[in-house]
């Protein structure tokens, strides 16, 4: 059991160090971001996901990045499913918009509407699996 003791010490020291280092990093990052004085502002889910997808798409080019295969959802092409999803969300938004000006969450000319097909494409990449249990 000497080994076990040593192993436990390793674990405590090791994870402690990893956490400590990343905590210091966290502190420093916060400091830098303070200097930038750019405030975080809320965006929509689609916008955030689009931006994230672009980042992921670049990283897919790395060796060992595991680019996923073309996807199906329930046997349907995932990009089709995503397009339907976006169309549905879009429809809901249009309804909301028509309800009353004050209810609009997006103004005409919003980037979001302009890029909905991009969104569909990006989202497609995001859906490369067969949902569990179906």
């Amino acid at each position: 059991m000497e080994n076990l003791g040593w192993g436990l010490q390793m674990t405590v020291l090791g994870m402690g160090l990893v956490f400590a280092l990343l905590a210091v990093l966290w502190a420093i990052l916060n400091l830098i971001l303070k200097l930038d004085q750019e405030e975080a502002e809320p965006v929509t889910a689609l916008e955030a996901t689009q931006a994230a997808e672009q980042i992921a798409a670049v990283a897919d080019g790395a060796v060992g990045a595991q680019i996923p295969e073309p996807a199906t959802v329930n046997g349907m092409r995932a990009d089709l499913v995503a397009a339907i999803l976006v169309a549905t969300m879009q429809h809901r938004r249009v309804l909301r918009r028509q309800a009353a000006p004050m209810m609009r969450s997006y103004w005409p000319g919003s980037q979001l509407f302009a890029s909905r097909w991009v969104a569909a494409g990006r989202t497609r990449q995001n859906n490369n699996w067969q949902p569990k249990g179906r």
Partner: protein
Amino acid sequence: MIDQETIGLLLKGVNNVTWQSLVMIGVSFVLLYLAIVKDYEPLLLLPIGAGCLLANLPLSPLIGEEGMLVALYHMGVGNEMFPLLIFIGIGALTDFGPLLENPRLVLLGAAGQFGIFLTLILALLLGFTPNEAASIGIIGAIDGPTSIYVSGILAPHMLGPITVAAYSYMSLVPIILPPVIHLMTTKEERLIRMPYSSRKISRRTRILFPIIVTVLVGTLVPFATPLIGMLMLGNLMKESGAVERLTKASAAEIANTVTLFLGLAIGSTMVGADFLKPSTLFILVLGLLAFALDGCAGVFFAKILNWLSGGKINPIIGAAGISAFPMAARVVQRVAQEEDFENFLLMHAMGANAAGQVASVVAGGVVLALMGAGG
């Protein structure tokens, strides 16, 4: 004159076929099958499989003295240059923006390294030496170059199975992670939506980030300097925008060439009696365990953060803290959408994932430091 001896030479090949070499050729076929048919990390597993095949053919001159595969090994595996060069390319394609927008996610990356140490303990109990146990644990970094780098220093005789395990499990992320997540979370937790915010990260911050990480990690954990230094060098080149030619060369030409050479060289270490030992099986099983434990720890820690933040963090993004950028983040997003098609967690998961990338490297350096390697 040509005589018995010459004819003996001709049959030398067939006479030198051993059952070990046959089994290893079978192993190489499995690797090629995984790479080509199952599409498991083919960029690495195909060259590894080919290297393994070529090294196990009878009397293969490729692994003789001055043999090409041996030369490739000395060129970049023995001195750890190949995994470091690959890291420059990975850094050149990694965008730490999602992490910079949400710095507290770095802690999720730390949590995702727990499996390394738990597996280390298990391996010790199974009778591996400390160096071997640490090398096996490092499979739990779920990061190919880190695994190659660390095990190349601590236990080069196990480089073959460890690399195969590391890359196979990286490619199994979409299969292994979802059940781990389901095991660790309730449906309610998986349904948590997180607020989406965006912060313009200035070019200055993006350039400072790799420099700060290098100095910080390099000073506190000198053993991690090569790994973090090269990852961050690639990132600095990318974010600076000043050396596009070098960035492109690192991510394309250099990365491709090195990957081919690295795979062949590592495959060539998988020869007969050295590989066909129960320990190889243990390595594969323990590596898988390390992976699963990483995911559990990441989710568990995210649950704590969720509790601390009053329910604002979906615990499943903790599973992206294991590294395997950007695949782990994509898998987390999938799992979220399985339950709620309109739940978009990708940006948060990418942040945790990028943190996992950094944390894996840090953990690799910490393990080397604790083992006093080279010290």
